[in-house]
């Protein structure tokens, strides 16, 4: 258990590193974080299922300009590990994984600002290093400023996984209504992500584009990949035939980058709809 806890903690650190640094495989997205966590504990299918469920819940939930968001990454890792520690069939384990992963993600939102605040001390040291032209010190400061980021994820991950034995005793008392409720929660949470994405797009101007996708799926049974490919074709036809409107602006994050996404974006969206 100690070894698993250490490896999963290292994985949690890599996930946030990949997010801030190279973005090689987007390890910070719950689908990837959960699948690899499953690999580490020896149950890929479980990790993949927990990760995929949380991924759909986290769709559209990204850090726009430094706002704190639910930490579904660590939620997926901890959820997978604790689901594995529980007994019962696959569906039951998955419910445990979601039931732990989502609340953990929400609770860890509170730790994220600490990781974002502490490197402020580093930047002041960097100012001093820059004045005296000490590039080596600047390098050290740049890389060590990652420590607070990693720590606020590593500590909860390690503690949760190391003491995952608690789950085995608690789960005997989990009532059926809770299991049913958590299953529904996992199934409807993607609504938040999709709604977030919609706030970033000019819905008032192009609402009829939503209808195309809806009809393709609901009435014509086209698969998700099919809808995406159809969308590419329609988008190309549209921009080829239509002259660009001078007022059209791209939605998303505007100039002050520390605003929550939906606020700035919706203002931009409104402006572009005039």
């Amino acid at each position, binding site marked *: 258990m100690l070894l698993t806890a250490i490896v999963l903690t290292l994985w949690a650190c890599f996930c946030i590193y990949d997010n801030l640094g190279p973005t090689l495989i*987007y390890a910070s997205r719950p689908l990837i974080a959960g699948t690899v966590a499953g690999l580490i504990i020896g149950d890929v299918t479980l990790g993949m*299922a927990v990760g*995929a469920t949380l991924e759909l819940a986290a*769709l*559209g939930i*990204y850090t*726009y300009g*430094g706002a704190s968001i*639910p930490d579904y990454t660590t939620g997926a890792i901890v959820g997978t590990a604790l689901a594995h520690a529980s007994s019962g069939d696959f569906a039951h384990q998955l419910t445990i994984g979601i039931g732990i992963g*989502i609340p953990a993600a*929400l609770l860890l*939102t509170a730790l994220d*600002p600490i990781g974002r*605040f502490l*490197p*402020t001390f*580093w*930047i002041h040291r960097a100012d001093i290093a*820059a*004045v005296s032209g000490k590039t080596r010190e600047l390098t050290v400061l*740049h*890389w060590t*400023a990652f420590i607070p*980021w990693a720590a606020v994820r590593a500590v909860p991950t390690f503690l949760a996984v190391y003491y995952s034995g608690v789950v085995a005793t608690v789960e005997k008392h989990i009532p059926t209504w*809770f299991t049913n*409720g*958590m299953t*529904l*929660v996992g*199934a*409807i*949470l993607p*609504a*938040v992500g*999709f709604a*977030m*994405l919609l706030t970033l*797009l000019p*819905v008032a101007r192009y609402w009829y*584009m939503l209808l195309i*996708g*809806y009809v393709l*799926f609901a009435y014509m*049974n086209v698969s*998700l990949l099919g809808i*995406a490919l159809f*969308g590419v074709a*329609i*988008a*190309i036809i549209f921009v080829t035939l239509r002259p660009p409107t001078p007022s*059209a602006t*791209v939605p*998303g*994050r505007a100039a002050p*980058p*520390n605003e*929550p996404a*939906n606020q700035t974006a*919706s203002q*931009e969206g409104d402006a572009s709809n005039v």
Partner: protein
Amino acid sequence: MSDTIERVAEPTPAEERPALPRSVLNRSFWRFFWSFQISWNYERMQALGFCWAIIPVLRHLHRDDKSFAEAMQRHLAFFNTSPIIGGPFILGSTIAMEEGGSAVSADGMKVAMMGPLAGIGDALTFVVYNSIIFTLGANWALNGQIIGPIFVAIMVLVPYYLVRRWQFNFAYKQGKNLITHLASGALQRFNEGLIILGLIVLGGFIPSIVKIVTTLHYSGKAVAGGKQPPPVTVQSQIDQVLPFLLPVLLTAFIYFLLKRFRLNPIWAIVILFAIGLTLGGLGWFAKPVAITH
């Protein structure tokens, strides 16, 4: 050499130094690639990451230690943009301007472009591209297919690298002409197309991914003869009105809360969590057993 501050702030004049070699440019790009945001903080966000990435270039351009130190301090100013589409662009063009010896235009360009490019970059990477590949991947993964996460990993690994490398090279080559290039209609059309793609895809993804049905039912009206007809499920009635009405209504409700009341997404999650746990716990609503596609 004069001792005035103005003189010290200038880099070594262009004619006195060799052109920026490829290796220095590469060092700068890889520094950016491996660690751009790892020192992110509330106060100056990506400033230290940007400064550290451009140091190889500054060291090459400024032989004088004092002007080198000043250049480093300039690049420790507040900076924040999209790391995938935007960051490499600005880094490349900043290097071109630093090489051209115009520190003022380099700083001005950084400030002017980080906001708009952050908006474009986040919209393209998160809203359009990621929402498509991650929904596809997660959907496959939920059906137990390992291709789901593998597909996503590859679709991130290759395009994310290429788009950053290409931007960096392009922006460095274009240098000062960059802003006129960005203002051309081609980029705007491209963005419009991606927005349309995003909306079409969301129109189909919402009813397929958000899953909720009601299990409520009522007994049919007793017909003459007193025989009790089989109970009528409310869900079958809803399906006759509009297929997937409940997922659409639920998403519209959350969209309304986020858009009109500027609700923090974290609260939206908490609200849905409470709704799901209550309605699911009571057994009135459930995740549909049969998945249509």
